[in-house]
């Protein structure tokens, strides 16, 4: 095996993995605050990408204005979704909450496509498609930008969790009954976590929309996002970043080995296998808390 080729696979895998982390961070934010597994994150990402497109291409705003504006709109949407749909289900069995997020996902996807149509559109961020060579290693520029955004968001959230509001969110994640009793508005905190996850969805939507085009396939990234979130521990943002890198490397290097053996397309298989093995061996993930109820 050629070492340069292998490290190229690993580095590009890690960069792709950091893009999965963009997804996983959104999932983790919501799970941390309210123990809700947000399977609608794929739908939210799609909406985020389409809103950016609608503002920039249809309304003619420049991208640097369209993206923050879209983030503001999605902030409101996330807040609204929590207020209307999720708050009334608080305390219900997980199967209903799961179904609610799945229903939201289907609804968001259907509505987005009904409004803007299903043909794939491009984001046109203006990042050059020319390959970038680091020594002998070929790296895709847009993946590098995306990885930078993921790490930037991670740092931003680390700082945010040190602020007053962030500490409130951490308290809610820790024990919402106790938070309630000291006067923290748990409802507002959970709503805020949904709003922040929706803002993260804009970032994921923009980067992934640039990579693979803005269409329905954006919501299919959910399985990878979920796997990253579970592998890192569903309530750890650091876990989401580290697990993203790990999954990206495993996926890229592993599929290179496996593809010739099974005739291609082994990426999905590797991701599913990682998810199953994580849940079977270490359900709380790499950095998650140990309070998972086993049978």
């Amino acid at each position, binding site marked *: 095996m050629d070492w340069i080729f292998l490290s190229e696979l690993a580095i590009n895998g890690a960069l792709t993995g950091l893009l999965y982390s963009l997804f996983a961070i959104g999932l983790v934010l919501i799970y941390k605050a309210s123990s809700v597994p947000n399977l609608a994150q794929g739908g939210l990402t799609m909406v985020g990408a389409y809103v950016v497109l609608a503002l920039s291409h249809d309304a003619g705003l420049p991208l640097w204005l369209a993206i923050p504006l879209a983030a503001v709109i999605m902030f409101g949407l996330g807040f609204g979704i929590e207020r209307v749909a999720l708050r009334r289900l608080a305390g219900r069995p997980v*199967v209903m909450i799961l179904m*609610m997020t799945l229903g939201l996902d289907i609804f968001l996807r259907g*509505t987005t496509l009904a409004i803007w149509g299903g043909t794939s559109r491009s984001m046109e961020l203006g990042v050059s498609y020319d390959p970038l060579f680091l020594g002998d290693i070929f790296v895709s520029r847009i993946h590098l930008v995306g990885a930078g955004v993921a790490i930037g968001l991670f740092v931003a959230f680390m700082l945010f969790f040190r602020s007053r509001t962030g500490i409130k969110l951490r308290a809610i994640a820790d024990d919402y009954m106790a938070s309630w009793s000291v006067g923290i508005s748990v409802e507002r905190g959970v709503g805020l976590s949904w709003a922040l996850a929706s803002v993260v969805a804009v970032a994921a939507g923009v980067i992934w929309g640039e990579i693979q085009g803005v269409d329905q396939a954006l919501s299919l990234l959910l399985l990878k996002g979920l796997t990253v979130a579970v592998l890192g521990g569903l309530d750890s943002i650091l876990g989401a970043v580290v697990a993203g890198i790990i999954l990206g490397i495993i996926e890229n290097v592993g599929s290179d080995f496996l593809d010739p053996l099974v005739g291609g397309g082994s990426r999905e298989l590797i991701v599913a296998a990682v998810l199953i093995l994580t849940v079977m061996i270490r359900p709380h993930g790499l950095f998650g808390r140990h309070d998972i109820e086993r049978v």
Partner: protein
Amino acid sequence: MFYRLSGVHHANYVSDSRIFKVPADRNLAIFIFLFGLAAPFLLPSLYLNSYMLPWLIWTAAALGLNLVTGWAGQLHLGYAAVMAVGAYSAIHAARFGVPWEFALIIGGLASSVIGSLFAFAALRVKGLYLALTTLAMQFVMDWVLTHSPAISGGSHASLQSPTLALLGQDITSDTGYYYVAFGWCVLVTIFMLNLKRTGLGRALVAVREKDFAAAILGVNSFYYKILAFAASSFIAGVSGALLVATFFFLAAPEQFSVAVSIQVLAMVIVGGLGSIIGSYLGVALILLVPGLVNGIVAGGSQSLGMQINVETLAHIPNAVYGALIVIILLIEPLGLGKLYGNIRDYLMVWPFDQLRK
């Protein structure tokens, strides 16, 4: 009113453990059964084949998922994969020359074996993590189906189903297909109705409510979980096989994708966990209403003289389908079965209202 309890006395255990304790319930069931029998003579064949038939088969499938999710309390997001196993094994068996009666049973048994694999995940984790594992298993199964031409039928990835023949009769007419689906749905319904009267059903409910409490009562929760998965997978397998044999006529991997798993789970939850009439209502709502709304929107926009994009029209059913799930869960998280139960409870003591809680 209709559900009057007056004059209904259960003086011995046999009468107290009847399936229908209230005469009105029994009459309603008999009425629905007779309507189902007479449907081919009452409905035009378009409605029979494109609405009634899929409704009945999906109801049978949803009842199977209800057994594992509603009764045994185990989340299952890989149900379509189990249906696919049944469908493909039955059709391969039938193509090989096995009579259809046995082919269907082979399909069911093959599903049971694979479905029990899902149960081993359930032995280790539960709740959200079980849902994620079964979801991942569904992806693995999808991958196996699309990547093995020996199973999925070559380059076009579709497998022609041979002519359905039961008890020596070739079944080719619309009415025939309908009665096959009707018969299977009735069988599954009778099984599910009886389930709550048996020790098995009570054991499953005990496992659902609290598995270690059940263990203290002497219920082996491992055994009953595997049993629940195996039984529901058998129902899934036969339903999947019948779906292909009487409705699609052609098996393709997309018919059993993740979206279908989510759809069956939506049917069960919208219908109500553990509710049999709820499963019927849930399937009807999820399967039929989105198309209906689409028709209304298309017709309405035409009569109003508005132009609606073709692409918009194509995606409206999906949006409606998602909205239905959200709305039903907001109105009544326990589903349509519970809504029906509320009405029934109210009528039971009408004109008084002491049963209302």
